[in-house]
């Protein structure tokens, strides 16, 4: 029992969870509006895209290193999916548009994966480079501009999963369908990461690449696969963003990567690889979303939010360091106890 407690205490996720509760209570006490139904739904809604990106960031960090290309993969692949659907006057089921996007996302991910696996370049450099490339194609070659969605996506966007109205303030909020997509992606990712050998391989190659190869994992295939999957998830996120905004906004994608990476590091993902969970992704994203969404409830200006985010990132990433010092001291005590 005590051992189990210790294990929980050592997990960064647990501490992030405590911070979230603490922050929620403060906001509730100061504004009385945090636990209002519309605020909760608002937070869930705001979490959809960052949480999807977080899976990309997680897979890349755990296995290889940072991937910063997902916002641009999302932008370019959703642009292609939407443009093609409009050009051919497609009006079938909405998910086909997603499939088109995923196809292009996979291609872009494959480009990342190919360069990283074949030439062993650092993933940060490669994905920075391809980001720039995708951005050039999107804004230079295609001259992408704002545009309306194809009719099928428009209808999909107008559906709502849940609509709530705050009795006191009269403010309403709706939870869009992409929330279900988020849930589906997380369930699939959870099953693959924990219950398939390929999923365990993601962690194994992040832990020690040479050991993984000796054990019989196909390191190259797994790594390439991760970047392809990342491309597909990014394209899903990109289309969800368009659906939730009711139109395609090409300039709104770039720059999202840093907050997402901060969120997953906060959630316990180790920058050197091998460690990181989906639970941590959700918690980290939730914390950062709460800060951006809810501090305004306490009357803190938008400019100060950035200061808060910065502070949380620094404190959050310091937690593992503090823990390791704490853990070491504890270890010593235990040893002393045994000797005595």
């Amino acid at each position: 029992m005590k051992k189990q407690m210790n294990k929980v205490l050592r997990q960064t996720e647990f501490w992030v969870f405590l911070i979230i509760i603490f922050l929620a209570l403060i906001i509730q006490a100061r504004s009385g509006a945090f636990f209002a139904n519309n605020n909760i739904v608002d937070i869930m809604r705001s979490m959809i895209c960052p949480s999807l990106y977080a899976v990309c960031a997680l897979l890349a960090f755990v296995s290889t290193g940072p991937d910063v290309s997902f916002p641009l993969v999302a932008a370019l692949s959703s642009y292609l999916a939407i443009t093609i659907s409009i050009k051919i006057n497609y009006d079938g089921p909405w998910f086909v548009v997603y499939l088109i996007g995923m196809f292009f996302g996979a291609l872009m991910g494959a480009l990342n994966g190919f360069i990283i696996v074949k030439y062993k370049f650092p993933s940060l450099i490669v994905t920075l480079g391809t980001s720039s490339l995708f951005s050039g194609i999107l804004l230079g070659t295609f001259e992408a501009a704002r545009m309306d969605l194809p009719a099928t996506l428009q209808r999909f966007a107008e559906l709502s999963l849940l609509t709530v109205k705050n009795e006191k303030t009269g403010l309403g909020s709706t939870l869009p369908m992409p929330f279900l997509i988020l849930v589906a992606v997380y369930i699939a990712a959870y099953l693959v990461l924990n219950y398939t050998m390929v999923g365990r391989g993601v962690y194994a190659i992040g832990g020690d690449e040479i050991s993984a190869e000796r054990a019989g994992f196909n390191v190259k295939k797994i790594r390439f696969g991760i970047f392809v999957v990342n491309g597909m998830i990014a394209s899903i996120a990109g289309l969800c963003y368009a659906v939730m905004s009711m139109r395609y906004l090409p300039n709104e994608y770039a720059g999202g990567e840093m907050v997402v990476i901060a969120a997953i590091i906060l959630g316990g993902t180790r920058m050197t690889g091998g460690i990181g969970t989906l639970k941590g992704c959700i918690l980290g994203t939730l914390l950062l979303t709460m800060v951006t969404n809810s501090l305004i409830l306490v009357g803190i200006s938008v400019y100060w939010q950035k200061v808060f985010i910065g502070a949380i990132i620094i404190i959050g990433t310091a937690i593992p360091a503090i823990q390791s010092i704490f853990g070491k001291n504890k270890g010593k005590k235990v040893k002393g106890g045994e000797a005595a």
Partner: protein
Amino acid sequence: MENILSVKGIKKSFGGVHALKGVDLTIRKGETHCLAGENGCGKSTIIKVISGFYKPDGGTIKVDGRDYPVMTPADAIKAGVQVIYQDFSIFPNLTVIENLAFNQVLANGKKFVNKKEFRKIAEEAVAKINFNVDMDALVETLPVADKQLIAISRALLDNAKLIIMDEPTTALTKKEVKRLFEIIADLKKNGITILFVSHKLDEVFEISDSITILRSGENVISCPASEMTEEKFAYYMTGRHFDNQELADNKKRTYGEEVLSVENLSAPGFEDISFKLHKGEILGVTGQLGSGRTELSLSLFGLNRPTAGRIMVEGKEAKLTDVSKAEELGIALVPEDRLTEGLFLPQSIIKNITVTRFDALAGRLGFIREDSLVEESAKWVKELGVATKNHEFPVQTLSGGNQQKVVLAKWLANNPKILILNGPTVGVDIGAKYDIHKLLHKLAADGMAIIVVSDDTAEVIATCDSAIVMHDGRITGILEKEDLTEAKLAEAAI
């Protein structure tokens, strides 16, 4: 008895460098065979050939009576050959269970994770060597010895017949080495053959039935362990004769006046230490890990502030509060861990040797003249026999012994009166060890006072005129001249 492994005439070169020039290795079933040789002799290469990771340029491989014209890693495992690498091939970020089970699950071609099956495989593995460990712990939280046992028990799962252990004792404490040897003895009883790769003399004699020594990619000798002696072993490894008599004769020198006197000194790590050191004397400070020997050496160099007692240097009381004070008084310390404390690894040999001399070598305006550095370092490289082709090379390209020589040169360049060496030959091969010992004798003959801090009793006996033995922070014995013998050291250590 039949042979489990027989390789003949193995050749392998890398880009024109002949790593193996026709190596033979024959191992009988059920024996513990030691493969020895200095760094770079081809030990690792032959292991990789046997385990199928390198394809040899020539030669034959026969395992358990079957010829393998081409050996792949999978063939090797199927034939029962398992390698325990120095890094143990583990996943620090995963649990003990996963570390143990992965290989077998993957070998069976399973695609999904069955937690019960994982646990069963893992439990079967640890049962083979009676290894007690928290199955759900992350491997990175375990001590090195446990990581090694994970690698060993995992190897046994694959029906290992021949287990190759690549320098398995490098990172272990004495107690852990003992446990490892018990496990090896157990494996031997179960008919498993062990190829034990090491260059540590005492271990080789303790554990092995027969010995093969390689030097520069060639066989030098293969014989039963009983036919091997210490001198032969050193000769075959290095190709040089070591005149231990010469070292012994050197010890008949006389000391000069007293340069250092430590009186009732206490500091964190040790208590009430007193001794005297004379010009031209080599004093050993020995004791187990944690006996306070390292702390004492740090106090003498201003890195561990004394709480009581005093230190007299050349008759005057010295307050050694920091390193620069110690340096002013002519004291130099060669630290225990040369990689982190004594060298700038990516920097050139020249810069490493001259770093303590920058002030003295600088011109009038404080600029350093490049040629004076080159000259100074060339002098020391020659004096100490550092084997290198280019003094501009980073120090990390040198072997352990040569790195240690560079550390020595760095401090000798300052011409100290008192030289303290902590573990001067840890991780250094026999040839370089002998050179370093000889150098210490020469320095002492020139009048330097030297303190050798070491847990290697053979080293203390070979180099020192007298020795203090420490235990639990106190002196438990002082041995001088003729009294300095293996037996008396052991007696004092308890």
